[in-house]
Every structure is written in structure tokens, then in C-alpha cells.
């Protein structure tokens, strides 16, 4: 059995599951950002796999470039927010930031 679309989809699914687990369980804000990066990468694998095996066009690769670009913007903003939280709460534990709790 040669490597086909389903193989790449399964690898991407495993990456997505690990990233979701990371986002759900981490209490460190940077850990959560690492999980989000895993999820974005799994989406990119899907784009490229469908682009190669299912459409044969290059549209998926262009989309992947947009995703990478948005991930870069997200990382910059996310880490700026993390540093802001650290300045205000002296911790990047997301459970420490409960100022809005009613």
C-alpha cells in the first residue's frame, strides 16, 4: 500500500489531537501558544495533502503560506500579551489572571 492522502490526514489528525490536548491542559500561557502552533501546522499539512492528492493545483500551497503568515502575526501578538500578563501578574499561569472573575 503506497502512501496516499489518508496517511497524511492521519498524521495531521494526530498533530491536531496533541495540540488540542496541549491547549486544554496547560496552565502556562506559552505552553498554550505552543499547542496552537501544533494545530496550525496540522491544518497546513491538510492543505498541502489535498493540494497534491485531490486537486493537483497550487491553491492549497498559497493558502498554507497565508496560514504561516497569520501564525507569525499570532505569535508576535500572543507573546506580547504574555509579556504584558507577566508584567501585571508576575506569573504567566493563566489561572492567576482572574481579575475578571465575577
Amino acid at each position: 500500500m503506497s502512501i496516499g492522502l489518508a496517511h497524511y490526514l492521519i498524521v495531521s489528525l494526530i498533530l491536531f489531537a496533541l495540540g488540542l490536548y496541549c491547549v486544554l491542559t496547560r496552565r502556562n500561557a506559552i505552553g498554550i501558544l505552543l499547542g496552537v502552533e501544533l494545530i496550525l501546522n496540522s491544518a497546513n499539512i491538510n492543505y498541502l495533502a489535498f493540494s497534491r492528492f485531490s486537486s493537483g493545483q497550487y491553491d492549497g500551497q498559497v493558502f498554507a503560506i497565508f496560514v504561516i503568515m497569520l501564525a507569525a502575526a499570532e505569535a508576535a501578538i500572543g507573546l506580547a500579551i504574555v509579556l504584558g500578563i507577566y508584567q501585571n501578574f508576575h506569573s504567566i499561569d493563566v489561572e492567576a489572571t482572574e481579575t475578571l472573575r465575577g
Partner: protein
Amino acid sequence: MSGLSLGDLVFYLVAGVTIISAAGVAFSPNIVYSAFSLMGTFMGVAGLYVLLAADFVAVIQVLIYVGGIMVLMIFAVMLTHRIADVRISNRSVGRLPALIVVACIAGVMAKAVLNTTWHSVAPGTPAPSTYAIGNGLLGDYILPFELASMVLLAALIGAVVLSRKELRDE
């Protein structure tokens, strides 16, 4: 099953590296190890892109993720607190409910992937994709391309505003 061809073997190797280092990101008790295994994941994903005949995207992945985002992440990890203290540095809570939720979602998606007959074309021979991507970016996708530059500018200004030290005159 008449043995694996070389291409299949390379795929399993790269996919294994990717998944094992992603597991390191998700389960490592130390945030520094998590950040460094994310770098392994990015390299593995770049390898998968090469196997998918996406040479340009693979180079972009290495340049932006491994060169840019990773440095930023490790920088932030080192800047913030008590990374040496393993118990505090990367605590995870609610493992069992999270595991159940993730297993349910992953199970549904795996069933969908395996039970669907995907529309497929025979994959062409790998060819340089830079020309087609450049034509796409400046042709069909010119509007998202220009919007992307606005988003990046806004993100940079926003990051500067958010992370600068607040000047209070009290």
C-alpha cells in the same frame, strides 16, 4: 505486503519524528523541553511538505517557523519566570477530561478520514512550485496578499504597544 519502498520508509521516518516531538510538546513537564521539541516538530512538518512536493512552502516553514517564531518562543520562555522549577514551569491540570474530549474528537475525525472515499487525482511528478505560487499570490489572490501586509503591520504595531513598559506619571 511486499516490503516497503524507499519513499514509504522516508514518509514513516519523517512522520515518526514529527509525531514523537509533538508528543514531547504536549507531555513534557518542562517548558524549555516543550519549546525545543516544537522545533523538531516544525522540521518534521517541513520534511512532510517536501514529500508533498511543496518545496517553496517547506523553505518558508523552515525560515519563518524555525528561524522566527521558534526564536521568539524560546526568548519568551527564557524571559518569563522560574523555568528551572519543573513543577511550576509547565503544570498541566484536568488531564483526564481533556483526554476524553480529545479522544472523542480524534475518534470522530479518524472515522471520517478512513470511511470517506476522497476525490483524488493521480499526483503529478514533483515540479518546482515557486512560479505557480508567485502567479497565484499576484494574480488570483492579490486581495488577500495586500490584506496580509496590513495585518502584519497592525500586528507589529500592536505587539509594540502591548509589550512596551507602561509609563505612568503618578
